[in-house]
């Protein structure tokens, strides 16, 4: 039930922002690895097998720093090597914006939105994504 609700929220997000891909990575149960649990607009199911590397790539850095990250034209201007950005490679994303999903003030998840064309996320679009995380925080950790 919660999964369906989260998936619907992701689909709504794709329309509202707008963008082509949206996914949520979370650490459930507490203390375990962070994995992509939900995705909309995905090209394949690779995301299901990916475990986020702490401090690596867009989502790993969001988890370790607790702050949003914007990539406007992957693989240009990135920190580290392109191979450290698995979700960008798996979903052929060029522009992406990722924000932390908080549990008790700590980043325990990531909401990522992406486009397969070079179209950076404008400030109002970034705000829309951040607003979604507030709604998501209540749902994604409800069964933890």
């Amino acid at each position: 039930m919660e999964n369906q609700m989260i998936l619907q929220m992701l689909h709504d997000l794709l329309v509202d922002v707008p963008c082509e891909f949206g996914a949520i990575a979370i650490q459930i149960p507490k203390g375990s690895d962070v994995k992509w649990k939900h995705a909309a607009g995905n090209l394949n199911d690779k995301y299901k097998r990916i475990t986020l590397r702490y401090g690596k790539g867009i989502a790993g850095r969001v988890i370790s720093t607790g702050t949003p990250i914007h990539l406007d034209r992957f693989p240009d201007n990135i920190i580290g090597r392109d191979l450290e950005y698995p979700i960008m490679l798996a979903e052929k994303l060029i522009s992406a914006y990722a924000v932390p999903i908080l549990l008790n003030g700590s980043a325990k998840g990531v909401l990522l939105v992406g486009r397969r064309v070079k179209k950076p996320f404008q400030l109002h679009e970034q705000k829309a994504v951040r607003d979604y995380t507030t709604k998501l925080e209540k749902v994604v950790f409800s069964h933890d």
Partner: protein
Amino acid sequence: MEKDTVISHYIIDSQEDEIKRISNELHEGVGQTLYSVFTGLEYLEGSMQEPAMKSYTAEIREQLSKTIQEIRLLSLELHPPSLASSGITAALKSYLKLYTSTYGIITELTSAGNERRLLEKQNIMLYRVCQEALGNIAKYADANLVHMKLNWEAEKVIIEIKDFGKGFDIHTGLAKRSGLAAMCERMELIGGTCLITSAIGNGTLITLSLPY
């Protein structure tokens, strides 16, 4: 041996020595020190009474645990200790496990024949070429599945890496991607060969051959 080949050997050997040193330092030095800090934090956490401080310490401990795990993985990627102790098959098996959990690409590894003990330099070169091939698959192939096959024949070992992705035109690929040419050059430096076969829509097969 030609002068250029001697220089290539020297550069690659120096790089590998440095990579091995950094890998060991991460694993045995930084990793071990962080683990000592981790156990110290566990001890402190156990003796704390105030719930807020206890929870804060638990949070730091969890972050430290993830950092230790990442350092271990980084060290493994740089230079797997199993390469010297257990051989190329074990090292590749371990790397493929990490590869699947990093890129979400399913891998299957089979080994036929009796594994021979290779020289350290041959082991590391084969490992690097396989890493490069797998990295290219993650970046360009659009593949969900990779088959890796090791055939230990009487006089040589043959490693086949087959992806079921979109394939590419060999001539344009070799001109554009220096990594492909570097793979072949690395194999030549240890007396082996590298054959790349690909067709658009039919995936790519990389065949590495190394005489003992």
